């Protein structure tokens, strides 16, 4: 950052440079999680496992082979509510909530006019971008954990709970199963990082946060539609949604991590490309809002 040249100037010598960014990050998280909208988004995500669990509790088992994967296992083992809810949430609900948070990062500040005050504080344009992205990543983790944790808790409350039968047929203890669920939450969080970078970039382009939010969510849907067309198979490995539902391997004994690694690499690629676009846009942007 060009700030380094400035910091070394005698005029500002002795100013504490370290720790400042962490302080800004903490303040950003506080701002994000003090906002009612953030809790409304997490609440909407929490509703998914609750609806699934309550519906099955009332109506009983669905005929096998219909509905999302793992649906049939829920009546036997309530712990599967969380995984089922995750599968339901991934195509639309999760991308929507992440789109709202990522699309709001810079455009939201611009629309409130607070972007100019953050920049003249001075937050530093690149530093602000990094902090905003990090806070979005924390929200991704909070969103996936909400689905898994609420799902597990409601499943525990409404259904019998016991050792879990994995996809490979092996059975693991409840504790081991819960760890696998956390691994799934981590997998899905990583899955959303590329999309978050896209949202961050789109957010630097406009002062209308809703535009950036909608564009981000729409891109996620479009990518999934493209991913469903066999004629575009050559394109599939490049879609950021390609591995979104590929976490089932974590539920094998022993777990297979290939997908996790491929997914992480793909998401890192998206982060690098869209992060660079966001930086180049951010440092040249005229802040007129």
């Amino acid at each position, binding site marked *: 950052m060009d700030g380094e040249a400035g910091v070394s100037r005698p005029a500002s010598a002795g*100013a504490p440079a370290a720790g400042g960014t962490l302080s800004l990050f903490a*303040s950003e998280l506080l701002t994000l999680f003090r906002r009612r909208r953030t809790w409304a988004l997490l609440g909407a995500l929490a509703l998914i496992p609750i609806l699934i669990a309550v519906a099955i509790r009332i109506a009983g088992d669905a005929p096998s082979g219909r509905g999302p994967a793992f649906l049939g296992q829920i009546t036997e083992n309530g712990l599967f509510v969380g995984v089922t809810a995750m599968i339901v949430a991934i195509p639309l609900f999760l991308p929507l909530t992440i789109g709202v948070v990522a699309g709001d990062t810079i455009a939201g500040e611009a629309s409130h006019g607070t972007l*100019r005050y953050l920049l003249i504080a001075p937050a530093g344009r690149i530093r602000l971008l990094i902090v905003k992205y990090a806070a979005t990543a924390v929200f991704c983790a909070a969103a996936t954990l909400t689905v898994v944790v609420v799902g597990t808790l409601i499943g525990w409350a409404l259904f019998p709970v016991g050792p879990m039968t994995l996809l490979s047929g092996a059975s693991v203890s409840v504790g081991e199963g819960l760890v696998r669920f956390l691994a799934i939450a981590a997998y899905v969080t990583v899955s959303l990082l590329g999309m978050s970078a896209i949202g961050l970039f789109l957010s630097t382009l406009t002062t209308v946060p809703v535009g950036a939010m909608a564009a981000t969510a729409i891109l996620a849907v479009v990518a999934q539609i493209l991913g469903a067309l066999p004629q575009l198979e050559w394109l599939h490995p490049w879609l950021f949604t390609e591995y979104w539902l590929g976490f089932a391997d974590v539920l094998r004994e022993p777990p297979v991590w290939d997908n996790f690694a491929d997914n992480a690499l793909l998401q890192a690629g998206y982060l690098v490309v869209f992060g660079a676009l966001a930086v180049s846009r951010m440092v040249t942007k005229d*802040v007129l809002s």
Partner: protein
Amino acid sequence: MTDGSRAGAGTVGDATAPDLTNGTDLAIETHGLTKRFRSQVAVDGVDLAVPRGAVFGFLGPNGSGKTTTIRMLLGLVAASAGGARVLGADMPRHVDSVLPRVGALVEGPAFSPYLSGVANLHRFDAADRHAPRRTRSARVDEALDRVGLSHAGRKKVHAYSLGMKQRLGIANALLMRRELLVLDEPTNGLDPQGTREVRALIRSLADDGTTVFVSSHLLAEVEQVCSHVGVMSAGRLVAQGTLEEFRAAGEARVLVQTPDGAAARRVLVRLGMDVDGELGGAAVAARFASSDVAPEAIVAALVADGVRVRGFEVERASLEQRFVELTGEGFDVVQ
């Protein structure tokens, strides 16, 4: 050849040395600062010189380029041409070292409406890596106290009135001890009492040695506190100087109240003054023009010619008139 170029370089060095010290005497210095938005020129070749310690009134009607100039000074907007130095360093190259020493209110206050006033100030303060965390709460409280907002600090900003937001915006500019304060229309939305408080605040800050750069489209609001004035019109800086220089540039005139209008006019013309056209009632007005006749001599001459003088007044053009002369009148924004 080498000798010649050495000598040349030496001369250039000598020439720049005093220039540099001169530069540190100026809190803000711009050269040909220009901003074009597509085809429209918002700021056109502005050469500002704001001395340290001054209270500089940056005047001009709405849309004259004041805010765009301020945005360029603060590194929010890149100049299309020309350059700016703030506190002795080039902007926007040195934003990270300059801006911690600058407090600013730009184009109105802006806050996250879902946070309290205190939380908003904490947030902006956290963004400044030079602002010590230990003293943050104390500094926020002090700044709120200084603008009379202590009682409302815990309220969410969306419940604030415009005047309260304006005060909070000024508090934000005062979170740290600053060398330069840039206040863009600081009295917007304030009642007369609030306007007076802001003026008093500016005075006390200036007394502490802070340079204050205050923009306004209302001359009367800043006239009483400024030491220097710059006037913008249609993107250009049309006048700049100390308040005295600015006042002196306005023409003085005499106003004679008399029933003997024709006789009075004759006397005034004889004294070499420019007599204005017919004024309503029993008054004659004349500008000194090139004559430097003393006011008491005018009265003596009038009386000697039997003019019945009922009232006599010398008035200097008010700053307001001067301002209108420079920027034009009416609601039309100069394009």
